[in-house]
């Protein structure tokens, strides 16, 4: 008994690499499960919005539907078009999924509960989310299909332009928090609902989230998939597990964007009642619960957008990104900088 306890206590220092692996598994496995049930939630919620029931046949109330889908996709044949480059064709979905998972390394779930607490966390996130576009571009290019190629071109142009607006929004957060470390950014928002950055950085908050929607190629910015014109866009030629990985990447990215928005603008693990008379009622709630609730809010917004907005036209998306979002973010960065310099209460004093 004592030997087991000793082993467990000394495990992190004795086997540091294994310990990191264990922690990665602890993050990635629930994440994959969350992705699976996010697809279920999407089909159910959008189903109810569209006066239908959504999946309700596999398991009680359709709870096993995502599992059934996964099993089905695993057993399907991976068809590689004869004109495609096999290596890149298989590599592309991994390039899409990899960054979506890797970004979780620097995300704090609670105070101190983070895989790697690096000081350049924000930069790391920005770098990784930019890599994801290569998966889409390569997939569209090597498929050797016109539909896929059109989707890839659109996706590349769209992601690159929204990356800029997103980057500027992050600069605003950086200026406001004075740190690139995500835990420090959350700590800078201490003090309750009104102290979170969503209020002083409201334009940046909105723009960041909308850019996030565009970045994940979700409705109403899903021109890269454009079902009614280019059928499925960049992944039109993919089947079986290669398609499933693209699918996973899309949903993992949605959860990632939701988590980042929650961290940077809604105070991550902080309780919304901090500083108010209700604070003592909710002290028993662990921070991770608040964090998950905030992720759920943005996750729901993703689905809500899809059910209520038609797709923007491609040139409209570009105009929105370059002519509206980028100027607003630049102006607001200046506003924030001035507020920080003059220690504007209640956020920057």
């Amino acid at each position, binding site marked *: 008994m004592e030997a087991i306890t000793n082993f467990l206590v000394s495990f992190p220092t004795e086997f540091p690499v294994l310990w990191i692996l264990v922690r990665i598994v602890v993050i990635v496995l629930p994440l994959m499960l969350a992705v699976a049930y996010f697809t279920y939630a999407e089909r159910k919620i959008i189903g109810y919005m569209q006066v239908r029931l959504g999946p309700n046949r596999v398991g009680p109330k359709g709870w096993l539907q995502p599992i059934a889908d996964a099993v089905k996709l695993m057993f399907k044949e991976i068809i590689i078009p004869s004109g495609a480059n096999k290596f890149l064709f298989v590599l592309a979905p991994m390039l899409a999924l990899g960054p979506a998972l890797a970004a979780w390394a620097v995300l704090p779930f609670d105070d101190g509960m983070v895989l790697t607490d690096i000081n350049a966390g924000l930069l790391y996130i920005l770098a990784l989310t930019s890599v994801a576009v290569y998966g889409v571009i390569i997939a569209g290019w090597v498929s050797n299909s016109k539909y896929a190629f059109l989707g890839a071109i659109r996706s590349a142009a769209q992601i690159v332009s929204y990356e800029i607006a997103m980057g500027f929004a992050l600069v605003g957060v950086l200026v406001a928090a004075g740190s690139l470390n995500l835990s420090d950014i959350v700590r800078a928002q201490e003090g309750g609902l009104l102290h979170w950055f969503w209020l002083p950085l409201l334009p940046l908050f909105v723009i960041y989230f909308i850019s996030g929607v565009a970045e994940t190629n979700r409705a109403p910015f899903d021109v890269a998939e454009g079902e009614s014109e280019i059928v499925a866009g960049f992944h039109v030629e993919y089947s079986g597990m290669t398609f499933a990985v693209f699918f996973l990447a899309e949903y993992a990215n949605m959860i990632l964007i939701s988590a980042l928005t929650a961290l940077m603008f809604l105070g991550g693990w902080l309780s919304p009642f901090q500083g108010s008379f209700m604070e003592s009622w909710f002290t028993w709630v662990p921070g991770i619960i608040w964090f998950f609730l905030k992720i759920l809010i943005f996750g729901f917004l993703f689905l809500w957008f899809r059910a*209520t907005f*038609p797709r923007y036209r491609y040139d409209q998306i570009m105009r929105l990104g370059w002519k509206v979002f980028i100027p607003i973010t630049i102006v607001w960065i200046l506003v924030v900088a001035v507020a920080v310099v003059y220690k504007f209460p209640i956020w920057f004093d």
Partner: protein
Amino acid sequence: MRPENYQAKSHPPSNEYELNFGPNHPGIEGNYALRVKLRGDRVIEARADAGYLHRGFEKLMEGRLWIQNIALVPRICVPDPTPMEVCYSLSVETLCVLEAPERAQWIRVMQLEMSRLAAHLFAFGGHAATTGLYTNMFWGVADRDLILDRFEELTGGRVYSIYNLPGGVRRDVPDGFLERLAALLDYLEARLEDYDNLFFRNQVFIRRARDVGAMTREQALEWGVTGPNLRATGLAFDVRRDDPYLIYDQLEFDVITQQAGDALARNLVRRGELKQSIRILRQIIERLPAVPGPVRVPIPNPLAWNAPAGETYTRVESSKGELAYYVVSTGGDKPYRVQVRGPSAMHAVRVLEKLSVGARLEDVAQIMFSLDACPPEVDR
């Protein structure tokens, strides 16, 4: 099918490329193909390719008795089948110098307007789906289903009712039907507000649909455009008002027009017509109980029914435009020739080809759905 067969160097270098829309494509209604040639994002040429849904209706009709064709005609246009039945019945009645009793005429108009409601709900739902807004499509399908329930109660059939026949309709309105129809109309009218909020007042949609596939009134007339598509260019032409058939001259309704002639205007016309159809149906619910009479005149033995020799051209206003039957009889028990002048044959081939030129790739599907074409009717 080897990669070397795909090599681009065998073609001269070009900025143009061709893309297939259909016959199996989510942006196309039914089995219908559009082959577009593009330069960048712009369509420079479009060729409609019907023929994937050819069922030979016109030829089939020549081999069937006058009354048997009733079961065939609604299949020509699935979303809006009733005008087909009524128009064919009217043609045969004209040939045989019959007239349906007044009560049957009221019931026919009731069906026509119910069918128009169902078809319009389907039409703008489909258009919304081409812009990625599937919610509207599912709502439209769900609400259309309620109308189909009433059709089932009235006629026994949900989609193909086969309820009209030369000389009247098959049976009278069931007890309590009009009350249930009135309740449905109240529901639909309240529901229109939801559609407005989701769709017709949705700024993203308005920006998507404005100036897409616009045509002028002159172009519309030259290309033979009819129905809501013509009224969207500002010309108030409606067969129901300008060449009244059945009892439309006793009903009050407005002819809805819009000026712009684009995809948005076409949808707004349909939205206005939903309201007008509800208005017409309310008048019918109010006045039908007082209309006396049988619902059918005696007809000869249908199996040995020889229509007098002659020819007739009868037109009605279907939800898609002017629908007409040109029927020729040589005095036999079968039509000698039936020609269907369907609105979709005009809209989905020539007009679609013309309007697609210069449009963006994303808007081709929108143009097709906003014209509300019906592929099975293109290729009869």
